């Protein structure tokens, strides 16, 4: 059952250098209980996509220039702020990369979990306390009853991210958006948080969008993957297929440029150049200036997403030809 569908979404920002599109023509859908990985580097538009879905971008300067976000039968991009407020929490919840700046430093962590519940459910003070304690225990805060009164600065980075998850999951959302949830954490803590997210998905049956630049995080968690580059989708496929048979040269590059523990490489396969400045993006395929397979036709126009398999799409005019290589 489709829980979320994003259709032709374009989000633009007004800047001193004119209007810049951060997200362009992005479409995807997500079933209940499914985990979608959105992969991209800085400036790819992955976080803006998430914030547009959540309705958290200040408008202006941001503007949904076209397209719509449909969640559980409602068109979110047309909802009033007050109605959107009711979706955030029980409908869609989000955790951010920086747990320190996302938590309020002057309220205890217990109070912050209770605040979320209080905003959405009519509960007695006792029930609020019990439900919050239960959530903190569920996300693995040790001696949670004693820590309810602790403030964010008293916690480690990993524990803060657990508290963020407790707040996000307090109202049992049907969709959780995790924006780089483990980027600021050590690998040992990253493994704990990813395990925890998967356990909570199994328990609550919620859908998850994991936004990351780390292909390893995708390999560990996602059912399906969407790759973004410079504001546009370049490839979408089920996770195993994407790793086995990447079609877009950028996806191939991302998979090859990171050294893995299992293989020895004499030299890493580097992607030359850098990500384009959003105000000065190349015409045509945005990856073409860095692409080893680029031909003159690549600069002629933006390649459309084409299906190479019912579930596998890529935006590269040479994808079919390169698929055999």
């Amino acid at each position, binding site marked *: 059952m489709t829980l979320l569908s994003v259709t032709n979404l374009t989000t633009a920002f007004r800047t001193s250098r004119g209007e810049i599109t951060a997200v362009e023509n992005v479409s995807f859908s997500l079933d209940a209980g499914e985990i979608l990985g959105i992969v991209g580097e800085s400036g790819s538009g992955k976080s803006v996509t998430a914030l547009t879905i959540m309705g958290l971008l200040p408008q202006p300067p941001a503007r949904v220039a076209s397209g719509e976000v449909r969640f559980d039968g409602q068109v979110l991009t047309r909802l009033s702020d007050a109605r959107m407020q009711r979706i955030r929490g029980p409908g869609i919840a989000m955790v951010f990369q920086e747990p320190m700046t996302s938590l309020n430093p002057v309220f205890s962590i217990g109070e912050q979990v209770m605040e979320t519940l209080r905003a959405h459910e009519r509960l007695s003070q006792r029930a609020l306390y019990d439900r919050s304690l239960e959530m903190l225990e569920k996300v693995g805060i040790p001696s949670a009853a004693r820590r309810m009164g602790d403030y964010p600065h008293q916690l480690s980075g990993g524990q803060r991210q657990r508290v963020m998850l407790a707040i996000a999951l307090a109202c049992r959302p049907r969709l959780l958006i995790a924006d780089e949830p483990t980027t600021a954490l050590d690998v040992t803590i990253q493994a704990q948080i990813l395990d925890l997210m998967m356990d909570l998905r199994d328990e609550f049956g919620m859908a998850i969008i994991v936004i990351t630049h780390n*292909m390893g995080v995708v*390999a560990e968690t996602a059912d399906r993957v969407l790759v973004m580059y410079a504001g546009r989708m370049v490839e979408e496929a089920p996770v*195993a297929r994407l790793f086995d048979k990447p079609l877009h040269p950028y996806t191939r590059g991302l998979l090859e440029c990171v050294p893995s523990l299992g293989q020895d490489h004499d030299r890493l396969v580097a992607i030359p150049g*850098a990500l384009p400045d959003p105000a000065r993006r190349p015409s045509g395929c945005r990856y073409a200036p860095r692409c080893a397979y680029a031909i003159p036709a690549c600069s002629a126009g933006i390649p459309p997403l084409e299906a190479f398999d019912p579930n596998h799409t890529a935006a590269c005019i040479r994808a079919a030809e390169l698929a055999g290589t």
Partner: protein
Amino acid sequence: MTKLIEATGLTKHFLVHAGGFLHRNTISLRAVDDVAIDIVTGETLGLVGESGCGKSTLGRLLIRLIPPTAGQIHFDGTDITQLGAAALREKRRSMQIIFQDPYGALNPRMSVEDIIMEPLLIHGARAGAETRGRVAAMLELVGLPPRVRDRFPHEFSGGQRQRIGIARALVLHPKFVVCDEPVSALDVSVQAQIVNLLQDLQRELGLTYLFIAHDLGVVKHISNRVAVMYLGKIVEVADKQTLYTDPLHPYTKALIAAVPVAHPAQRSRGRKEQERLTGDIPSALHPPSGCRFHTRCPHAMPVCREQEPRIIEPAPGRQVACHLIG
């Protein structure tokens, strides 16, 4: 195999304010505690560990950017812990550092040429055509076009800034370079460029590296040997193949087990459960007694709580500090 660096008993305590108003109470944070480490000429020694384990402090101690609380560091045969300011400055030509954050490490008001020239001027060169020529040669070496010399740091991407930082570190022709997380702030598609550049420069210039990073994949790729640090102590050292295929210390095993898989078919959830670490790294202000890892170690025994394990050599070139081994 000559040793470029030999450090013994290396210790760094930072005094931390711990309350008190009329009488300031301080306690010492033992960032690096009684560490012995050798670095062989021409090799890359990787240094890994969780944040707060003291790896950056150790890197800075080895080139005496910060003075040690105790211990000796022999660099190229000289005990640099005893050197006075003038002699130390002379030695600094041979020891340089590349920092993690290419945005914070470059002075925004200086042009690229001035940034790369500054170390030369400090060490007595005059700002003439010859010095400019050396800067131009450095730019070419790190893969930047000569025309960028009049530009300022904000005009560059992260990867290009890191190239400028590398040029600045190498312009004095050092023997030893501490690379402190040089790629972790960069986009993944750019990281490989910088890793390749560092390897090329090592080959061309005969450099010795200490490569500090938390990304175990990058460390494995670039290093000859790897040292693992936990709460101010080195717990294991081995050549990289041995360390990654046959780790001895439970902490090393846990670190490797925590690395995300390379392909979804190897998904590790549940499978590596027994190696998963629980909890966080304890505070270096109050490190656990005995083996510092015992609070998170799945194999902890009573002795681990009481006695600190000594470093032993279970095989030539291999060191480990764990009561389970030996």
